[in-house]
């Protein structure tokens, strides 16, 4: 097995172009498990850990919106420590990934490239309308995250491409993330849900995990809630949400799912759980909005 260790980004892109079947490795927390169990025998590994630029994040602006550009190899521990108030939903999800040892090494880029329906990074990124930046020697392109996932563990990445970064609009309102599944290093989520309120553009974002072959948003639920809030003048003068609104929101979120039966739970249980998670996270986020907290960073158990 060849082990390539490029020192810089352009060298890494060259290497990927010359060895399109090389397996990139960042934190190694997905790749190493497959290799140690002989599920995969790549001829060539492309180690990305020496590339400084992939481990950096910065504040930028995209289409006039303050945005954080997160290098693909920034580990979860740093998202939690450094971006907890700027991207609260993502930081909350990061705090639930694996174990502390996994969070010290595992990266967002690795989570995205693995494209597991259960990846915890995906729902909060979808709820924030994140975009993913892919690059190859041919050039760079940026696409909405929703278009990146094409199937179970499948993505739109070409064989010569690498993930350079993720662009996440900064939060302007409360964000919540909730996960069902006992929490420790052994557990993959039964289902997850993320919600983000975007008061500045009067929008709502959602993300569902372990609920379909690919992570997805509940677009109908987003549109329904944004419409109901606008109609009742709730953004400017927030009052408690009528039960009919939270109930309908939960229903539409559950309807967006296409879950399967597996060892972790039945499809019926997942649909029910999503309904509950959606109502619950919405009420936490709405309470926060009403109490005037601009940004949330608190974690609550489901």
């Amino acid at each position, binding site marked *: *097995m*060849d*082990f390539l*260790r490029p020192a810089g980004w352009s060298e890494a892109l060259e290497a990927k172009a010359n060895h399109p079947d090389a397996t990139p*490795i960042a*934190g*190694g*927390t997905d790749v*190493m*498990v497959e*290799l*140690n*169990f002989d599920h995969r025998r790549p001829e060539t*590994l492309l*180690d990305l*850990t020496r590339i400084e630029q992939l481990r950096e994040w910065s504040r930028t602006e995209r289409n006039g919106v303050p945005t954080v550009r997160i290098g693909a190899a920034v580990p979860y*521990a740093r998202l*939690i*420590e450094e971006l*907890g*108030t700027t991207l609260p939903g993502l930081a909350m999800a990061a*705090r*639930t990934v*694996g*174990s*502390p*040892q*996994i969070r*010290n*090494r595992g990266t967002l880029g690795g989570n995205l490239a693995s494209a597991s329906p259960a990846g915890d990074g995906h729902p909060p990124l979808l709820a924030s309308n994140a975009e993913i930046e892919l690059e190859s020697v041919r050039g760079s392109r940026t696409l909405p995250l929703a278009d990146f996932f094409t199937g179970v563990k499948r993505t739109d990445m070409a064989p010569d491409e690498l993930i350079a970064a993720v662009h996440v609009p900064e939060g302007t309102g409360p964000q919540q993330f909730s996960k069902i599944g006992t*929490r*420790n*290093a*052994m557990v993959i989520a039964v289902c997850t849900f993320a919600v983000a309120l975007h008061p500045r553009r009067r929008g709502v974002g959602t993300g569902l995990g372990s609920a379909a072959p690919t992570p997805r948003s509940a677009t109908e639920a987003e549109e329904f809630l944004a419409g109901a809030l606008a109609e009742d003048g709730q953004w400017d003068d927030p009052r408690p949400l009528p039960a009919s609104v939270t109930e309908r929101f939960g229903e539409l979120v559950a309807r967006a799912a296409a879950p399967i039966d597996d060892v972790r739970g039945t499809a019926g249980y997942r649909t029910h759980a999503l309904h509950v998670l959606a109502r619950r996270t919405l009420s936490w986020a709405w309470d926060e909005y009403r109490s005037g907290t601009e940004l949330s*960073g*608190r*974690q609550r158990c489901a």
Partner: protein
Amino acid sequence: MDSEITLWVDGRRETLSVDTRTTLLDALRERLGVTSPKKGCDHGQCGACTVLLDGRRATSCLTFAVANDESEVVTAEGLAEGDEPHPVQRALLENDGFQCGYCTPGQVCSAVGMLDEVKSGWPSYVTEDLDESVELDEDEIRERMSGNLCRCGAYANIVTAIREAAE
């Protein structure tokens, strides 16, 4: 394919030639005879192989030796100062924080790394107030040590020991 690498292990400089497929854990145990990191699962789940890698706790089964050329590795063995155990080791001894001891070297490295994370102000899943400094109560210790399993179930005393060592 073999590659020559240098590792700093418990303060010693070690140069060795390893197959690219060798994990850091196997290099330590089988090539360098450093057997305090244990192999429980080879899967990242049990934490028995935890070492301090460039100062941070990491599972040594989930990284290749070749990817760690010139890195500093500290194992439970290297934490003692001569015959004087590290405060975390002493606290585990005094509080019966183990039975068979298989998970203990990993617990020790994880606890030392964890105390350092707390000192740097890293919040955990159960940290309530992100702006205040962390109060290391039982919930915090259990959450922050959740990457280390103990088949003998010595958790209660491990928590007590870590709490004592933190003081």
